[in-house]
């Protein structure tokens, strides 16, 4: 096998298609075939959104044995007040996320980067990253426990900070507090992990730049503002683009875990709504239409944000 390849080496040069090319192609082909089945085939299943497949007992009948109804399913969800509420929750939470949850890890990384004691820095990092690896079932379960009005610790902390009173404990799992709960719990779980990428970008910055700035009399904040931030900007750009393209998606795991009957008006978001209408209520076509709307919007947002970023900073996502 090996010997024959050596011998052929010279002769094969003239031919366009070598054994090597074939080998590489089948290796890459595994991925292509997988994607054709598990990513592109379902895209064909989008026709379900244009069919009358709601409430079928079997999802296969819904797609193969129903008739086309045009854009009826799309009109149905656009006119559905429930959908409008869900969309507002989804957008509202993601926009708040963009303003608070997105910059928080950058700030955290900047503060962490200022620590001179390496060991202390490592401890803070290890501790703050740990919750990222917990599942939302575990973390959400803990939050539900801490929110308990008699045994939980959230209420005592709130009295301490001046909210509520001992006699009237607040149930933070109700609609009124849900958005705050989601943002805060998301921050506690994700800020450490979110900062890793920025810290990595910061450690790659050449020390010489800081030394030069010091000679010019730059203080700590001047260095941060004029050296660190501009140099981690490419990383920030990429992540903000991804964030924008995800304007319609939330962490299903987080929301589903923290939802209960009393907070649904503020906690139902597109991903959990799709699960409930599609899988539980079997409104297959209605939900397929919703899913299509979500995918298309996300894609348009990404392309839009990407082209703006390319114009502004000359760099987009996946510019090889």
């Amino acid at each position, binding site marked *: 096998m090996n010997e024959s390849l050596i011998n052929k080496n010279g002769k094969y040069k003239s031919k366009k298609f070598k054994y090597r090319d074939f080998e590489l192609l089948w290796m890459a082909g595994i991925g292509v075939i997988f994607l054709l089945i598990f*990513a592109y085939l379902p895209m064909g299943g989008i026709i379900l959104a244009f069919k009358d497949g709601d409430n079928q007992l079997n999802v296969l009948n819904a797609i193969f044995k129903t008739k086309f109804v045009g854009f009826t399913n799309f009109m149905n969800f656009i006119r559905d007040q429930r959908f409008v509420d869900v969309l507002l929750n989804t957008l509202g939470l993601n926009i708040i996320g963009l303003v608070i949850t997105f910059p928080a890890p950058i700030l955290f990384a900047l503060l962490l980067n200022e620590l001179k004691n390496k060991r202390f820095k490592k401890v803070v990092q290890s501790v703050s990253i740990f919750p990222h690896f*917990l599942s939302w079932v575990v973390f959400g379960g803990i939050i539900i426990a801490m929110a308990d009005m008699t045994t939980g610790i959230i209420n005592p902390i709130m009295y301490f900070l001046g909210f509520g009173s001992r006699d009237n404990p607040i149930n933070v799992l109700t609609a009124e507090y849900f958005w705050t709960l989601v943002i805060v719990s998301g921050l506690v779980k994700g800020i450490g992990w979110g900062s890793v990428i920025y810290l990595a970008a910061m450690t790659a910055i050449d020390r010489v730049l800081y030394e030069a700035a010091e000679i010019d009399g730059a203080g700590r904040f001047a260095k941060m503002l004029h050296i660190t931030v501009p140099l981690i900007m490419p990383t920030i750009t990429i992540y903000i683009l991804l964030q924008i393209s995800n304007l319609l998606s939330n962490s299903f795991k987080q929301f589903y875990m923290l939802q209960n009957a009393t907070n649904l008006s503020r906690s139902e978001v597109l991903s959990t709504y799709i699960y409930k209408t599609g899988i539980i209520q079997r409104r297959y076509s209605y939900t397929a239409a919703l899913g299509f709307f979500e995918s298309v919007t996300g894609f348009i947002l990404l392309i839009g944000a990407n082209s703006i970023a390319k114009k502004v900073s000359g760099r987009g996502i996946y510019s090889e």
Partner: protein
Amino acid sequence: MTNTLKMRNNNKPKLFNIINGTLLILFSLITIYPMFYVLIGAFSHGDAYSAGGAWLFPRQFTLSNFIVILSDDMLWYAFRNTIMKTVIGTGLSLIFTSIVAYAMSRKKLKFRKTIRAISLFTMFFSGGLIPYFVLINYMGLYDNFLVYIIPSLYSVYNMIILSSFFAGIPNDLHEAAEIDGASEFYIYRKIYMPLAKPALATIALWSAVGHWNSYFSTMIYSNAGKKMITLQYYLMGVINQANYTIGDNISPGIIEEVTSTTVSYAAIIIATIPILLIYPFLQKYFTFGIQEGASKG
């Protein structure tokens, strides 16, 4: 003049350091406290805990919560299934993803740009949940253990990370092997894979944590019976259930010491121990992986 300037410069940073350090310590405490909080509850006597105020030490220390949860057969089925899906799923996905990643890292690959575009597109556009649900049903994967393995055999995201790592391996190695007559697959297996150990470890750990923490597939693609139930799904049931039904093989003395709340805390601790055990390894590799991911998008 210069002296006063120096003084100022020295004082300011000190104050900043103190505030910064305090802030970060406080934040670290906030992130770690929730785990500590359930740990206390898990070791507490159920009724004593219900009185409230157990924030730093267990109320009437007991192991009963753990005895109750560990004698639930369903927990062990969930453990078995989750371990199986984590080990098999991670192992196979590493093999398939690395094979594709190797091919994609070779500049000589024909149709490379097309394949890349086909792959990237799937990261940003999908058919949605329902068409995917149709596919799973159509393939007979509903309520079938393989639904945990087959759909996650290959990941574009991991492929990109691995392939950028492979691309960073000096091409001289490849050329030398090629002259010696090694086939591409041989080079992949005997030269590139051993060199990519840190990248592979990163992806393996991420994938394993993902498998361990997921409950969506169980909820959507199965009836969550003994063969299919996973740890997180089981745990969700225990947490949401107002009244956890205790098996009849538990002695009354132990049942007296627990409530469904404290039992659910014990379940949370048990489901988290494996993550805690691999955390040192996760820490060793995550910085590496995320840097690779960032540099190539």
